[in-house]
């Protein structure tokens, strides 16, 4: 083999080696960091056709509506717990920290955390959204079985507004604003 070809072969095999290593590491890291999303009923009844239930200690995300009247705060610390529900059963989320500005009873939230036992979750992060009618898309799909479509525009002051609003939406998002109205744990 002439030296130039040899060099090329070396280069190509080096690239292949690096590439496979990189892809392997990437996929491994990806699998390590996947958090499945559950709604309260999915958490209790199992997810999907196989009815897979998470095991205690597993990291997961849970989304639902905060049950009105269920928010309990500790008197001397920032510990708080609240019940979360979608269509039927409720689960309890425990959290130690500051709830997001938009956290409100009766509103949809998503919590990231680990499962303590079948109906209790220790949250590391609670996320809420900047919209009165907002429901996390996953919750909306799970609750209604439909995709979350744009709500019709409603005017705050005008009387017969919905009839004239046409296709306008309440989209208030600025397109490339990095992160919107979510709050949660530290970096």
């Amino acid at each position, binding site marked *: 083999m002439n030296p130039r070809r040899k060099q090329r072969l070396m*280069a190509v095999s080096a*690239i292949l080696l*690096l590439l496979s290593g*990189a892809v392997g*590491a*990437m996929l491994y890291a*990806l699998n*390590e*960091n*996947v*958090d499945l*999303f559950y709604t309260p009923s999915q958490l209790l009844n199992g*997810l999907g056709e196989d009815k897979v239930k998470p095991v205690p200690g597993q*990291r997961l*995300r849970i989304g639902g509506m905060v049950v009105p009247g269920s928010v309990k705060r500790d*008197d*001397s*610390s*920032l510990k708080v717990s609240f019940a979360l529900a979608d269509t039927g059963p409720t689960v309890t989320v425990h959290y*130690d920290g*500051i*709830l997001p*500005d*938009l956290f409100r009873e009766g509103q949809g939230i*998503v919590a*990231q955390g680990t499962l303590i036992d079948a109906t209790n979750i220790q949250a590391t992060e609670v*996320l809420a*959204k*900047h*919209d*009165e009618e907002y429901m*996390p*898309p996953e919750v909306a799909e799970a609750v209604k079985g439909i*995709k979350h479509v*744009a*709500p019709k*525009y409603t005017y*705050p*002051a*005008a009387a017969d*507004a919905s009839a*004239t609003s046409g296709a*306008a*939406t*309440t*989209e*208030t*998002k*600025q*397109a*490339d*604003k*990095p*992160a*919107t*109205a*979510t*709050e949660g744990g*530290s*970096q």
Partner: protein
Amino acid sequence: MIPEIGQLSLIFAFALSCLLALVPMYGSYSGSVRALLLAKPLAIGLFLFSGTAMACLMYAFYHSDFTVINVASNSSSMLPWYFQLTASFGSHEGSMLLWVTILALWTALVALFSNSLPLLMQGRILGVMGFICVGFIAFSLFMSNPFERSLPFFPVEGRDLNPLLQDFGMIVHPPLLYVGYVGFAVSFAFAIAALIGGKFDSTWARWARPWTLAAWLFLTLGIMLGSWWAYNELGWGGWWFWDPVENASFMPWLVGTALLHSLAVTEKRGTFKSWTVLLAIAAFSLSLMGAFLVRSGVLVSVHSFASDPSRGLYLLAFLLLVVGGSLFLYALRMNAVRSQARYQLFSREVLLWGNNVFLLTATLVVFLGTLYPLFHKELGLGSISIGEPFFNQLFYYLVIPFSLLLGLGPWVRWKQQQLPPLLKPLTLVALLALTLAIGYLAATQSLAANLALLGCLLGAWVGMSAIGEVYQRAQQLGGFSLGFTRLQASHWGMTLAHIGFAVLVVGVAMTKTLSVEKDVRMKIGDTVELNGYHFTLTDVYALNGPNYGGQAAELEVFSNGEKVTHLHAEKRFYPLQKTVMTEAAVHARLSRDLYVALGEELSGPSWAMRVYVKPFVRWIWLGGVLMALGALLALLDKRYRRAPAHVDVKVRETTAAFNGAEHA
């Protein structure tokens, strides 16, 4: 009336963009010089009309014309005038119009500042830009009209701008970011024009380089501003969240950085040609993908918004058309292109190739992490989210070898480099970096084998090596002081950008490792201690703003018995949007930030407070600014400012080229 003028202008702009997409292209095939010469006035007219449309929209916002649906949903009469103006790009429709205007601005700039280009090339570039304009103006006109009226029933008051967007960041961040995003359309147009012409040489790279630099400069600034804004406005002291929307802007940045470096090789050595073209296509495609991800709502994220699926479909179709079309053209043309330059294994070419490999791997990581949840869901495997650790971990592994190579890169010559002459200066640089990093950490913080040490070492290595290299180059150019003035502006630019990267790495590592964060419950008079700083809550009182109410907290900060500063944190309630916003109090110094955010009121009365001490967090943005400054310096390099050829000469050249082609 004014909104109708805006609407009409947008329609004119659409017509002009259609002409711009067709006429110069026709000229480039038929050799009609007149058709080619028409490109410039068309491009300028396109900008004038889309600029008028944007101005009309701003006027409607400024005068609170609530008959326009867009104004009614995103503004209110109580809003300060500067936010009324910026609210014009606060919504999907308005931001799309801003996007169009900036795209037209770039097109006009290319038309104005490309006099040194051959007529054919100029016509093709502007034709491609025109085609992109057609796609986006049509989207704005037909799918998301910003001027739509709600007559005869219109509201007397608007719904107000999303309080998150009522910030100084909103005034500068979106325009800068868009200028960057859209700027890659110019690199793309250069690449496509070259593909059509089938001619690649170092002159082509020299033309494309300043435009790419300019786009990259603005994208860098835009991303950094966004990060700084999120830090101040979201009330949780983070500066990067690996949010899909952020990732959407980060991917074009990474590929754009790779493109800049690859363009350098193409310009100086005439090689890496096909690779450069591919990167130019990729950078713009990722910009488009970002627009698609952000505006279609396909991503399962708490940040995604209820949106119109047909809009997403349109953008996806446009994205596929652009990517598919350009790759097809690439496949047709690129096999004919051969790079003739040869280089050894240890040469600057290979090191820059390494730079590209790492940057593209990083892009792949971000791409995978952003889109994997989407695929997972579409395949019916359930909703998932990818945790931050995925990105952090992989970037950790990527940054180490990348920084080591980066410190080495500028020292190595093109074509081939012998190792021995480099050993002495590099050992010196390495020793200096070691002393600096370890010395600093030992003197000020606790020295431990952690991320902070690693970051400081890598940062010091890159920074020292950049400074050392400039010093050595200056020596070679005739002594210390003389050499410094003789160095090219682009060389200074590179050095500054590399130092910026070093500063950024130090900032990230130090903040990640040494930040102290505490969520506490405080009564008035309570004191909390963090890293030697004593924060005392002195007062909480009701707040009365122009369009908001809420609470404000006053804190005194002491360190070693001495008063450091007074902090004023707010929690605002915006009644029109019924939302609560946190205005954090930040006391910034180069070496650390004190950060306090007021949380909710608890029984007692006491308040939940976030109290953070974040060392070196300013360095992150400082690094970004230095990188952008580096790009600016490189942009000012003399070699990009060549005397333009006279039109008559170019016309003769073009005619000659076509006649030659016919005879041949």
